[in-house]
């Protein structure tokens, strides 16, 4: 008989403990982070996801993804893709320009910003939101951010983001209202960079 356990994906873990309340709490944090670009916020929910997903990344994915949001990941056949497909029901794509969300597991092999979609002037919301896992986040130094939601300016240091990436990001601001929104994720912490934020090196 072939229908043995080995046919079952090995690492299917549970999602949120309390799906409704946990996703409401996480949504509140990410909304707050988007309203205050660059500020580092903490997400308390820790779903028991595969290890490659940082806790905040797992919480964000479970909150934001559903059957209508196409997800791009570097490896569509990983345990993470299986986990998110099971819990969120989201389609997984290999084409970055089709993605509503992109989960980027490390800054090492990040595609350029131009690989993703920035929306079009009639529908600027049809753009990709990047969830980028990084090695550290700090407000002590780094690039300076200006724009709505920021009093004067704020510093944000994101480990592993090359200067060229920041330049590409700042250049893309000319296309507003089109643009790409980013959430940087470090363990349980997140910092958001919506398309309204200007980056000065």
């Amino acid at each position, binding site marked *: *008989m*072939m*229908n*043995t*356990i*080995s*046919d*079952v*994906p090995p690492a*299917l*873990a*549970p*999602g949120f403990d309390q*799906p409704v309340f946990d996703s409401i709490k996480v949504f509140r944090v990410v909304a707050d982070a988007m309203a205050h670009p660059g500020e580092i916020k903490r997400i308390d929910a820790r779903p028991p996801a595969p290890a490659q997903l940082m806790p905040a990344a797992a919480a964000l994915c479970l909150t934001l993804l559903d059957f209508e949001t196409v997800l791009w990941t570097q490896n569509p*056949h990983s345990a993470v893709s299986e986990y998110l497909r*099971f*819990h969120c029901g989201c389609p997984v794509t290999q084409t970055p320009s089709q993605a509503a969300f992109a989960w980027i597991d490390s800054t090492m092999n990040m595609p350029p910003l131009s690989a993703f979609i920035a929306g079009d002037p009639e529908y600027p919301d049809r753009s990709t939101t990047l969830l980028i896992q990084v090695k550290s986040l700090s407000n002590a130094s780094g690039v300076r951010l200006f724009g709505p939601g920021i009093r004067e300016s704020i510093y944000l240091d994101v480990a592993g983001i090359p200067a060229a990436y920041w330049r590409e990001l700042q250049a893309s601001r000319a296309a507003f209202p089109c643009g790409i929104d980013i959430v940087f994720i470090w363990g349980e912490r997140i910092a958001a960079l919506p398309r309204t934020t200007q980056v000065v090196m």
Partner: protein
Amino acid sequence: MSTVDLSAVSRRQQWMSILASADRDALEVVCRPLGDLIRVRCQWLRAPETGLVMVRGRIGGSGAKFNLGEVPVTRCALRLQIEKNSSTGAAWVQGRDVHHAELAARIDALLQIPVHSEHVYGQVITPLAAGRSARRETAARKAAATKVEFYTLARESLAG
């Protein structure tokens, strides 16, 4: 992922269908002799939740799909660990009966563990399948008795 064995998939689809369409009380009765096997501690991958599913049917004269209406459906997924064997079971059951969904998912998980599969299949699926075909036959017989042939009318053409 390894290649999927289609016969195992269709076998599983078949028993999941039988479990879902079974009467809750009938399911409980056939599960009782399983004893502790049916009460093994489980880990919820997705706790039972009820939602609505749009049912579409080819109910028009020309056979086009039509939104018939929404039905409540309860689904759940769980993982069982019995000695060295672990197994994942899932269930989608019409209605809002959380317990029915849980039982169906537990049986689905047990059926995927080779050492228990045959025993559980004989104990649970065989009688439920027999009950289902008997029910279907009765329904078909009753429906057939009401069939009327309108010899004076032509059937609606498929061309529309």
